[in-house]
């Protein structure tokens, strides 16, 4: 049932989201994004299963700079979602809800996700 004219709080058009709020909605957006990205995973395994020619075509696409750029973006989305997911698991134990901890964890998550992404991309694209 949809109720109109109810008071809305916080009103998203006038309310400036704090860092914790931005991170919360980013968790959701990266989740949806990664879910859609699963189609690419299905393509990769299907190409491997389809034999050497399909695999060659796959590597042609994956070798393109645009694919690598998007791949890097997805890896950051993945590690951000992973780090914030770990925090959700910590929250599930009933800990870490006071304001100072929330802001500190938000900062840790962004740094950890960045470090993990750089490490993963470094290991992927070098030796």
């Amino acid at each position, binding site marked *: 049932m949809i109720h109109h004219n109810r008071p809305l709080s916080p009103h998203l058009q006038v309310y400036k989201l704090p860092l914790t709020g931005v991170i919360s909605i980013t968790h959701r957006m990266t989740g949806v994004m990664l879910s859609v990205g699963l189609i690419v*995973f*299905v393509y990769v395994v299907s190409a491997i299963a389809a034999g050497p020619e399909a695999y060659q075509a796959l590597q042609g696409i994956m070798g393109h700079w645009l694919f690598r750029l998007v791949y890097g973006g997805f890896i950051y989305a993945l590690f951000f979602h992973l780090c914030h997911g770990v925090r959700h698991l910590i929250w599930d134990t009933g800990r870490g809800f006071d304001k100072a901890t929330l802001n500190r964890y938000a900062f840790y998550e962004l740094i950890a996700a960045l470090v993990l992404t750089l490490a993963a991309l470094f290991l992927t694209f070098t030796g």
Partner: protein
Amino acid sequence: MDYRTPLSKVRGLGSAKSGTAHWWLQRVTAVVLIPLTVWLLWLFKLSFYAPYQETAVWLSAPLNSICLLAWIVAVFYHAALGVQVVIEDYVAGDGSKIIAIWLVKLIFGVLALAASIAVFKVISAG
């Protein structure tokens, strides 16, 4: 003892029915996915650079194919549960909500099957 309000009985919507299982499985799959997803990045590294034979042999090694199949089950389940919550929050009408969730689960189910069949195909060819 009946905890349901008279209004909820009249509307016939009842409780959320399986909310706890949904919540719990979202956590279980999340925990499983942490190590498996990091491990899976190796498959992408191989796909970027390795010749066909190397990738196929790696994928058909028992430990790797078991981990990959486990990852497929966990990741599509986790994604379906997550997208379901997003739909429940943003789609207002009950009819379109139920159909959207049903469609998403169907699509993820088909994708999971397609990926699993591909893995089996690599194993049987190798």
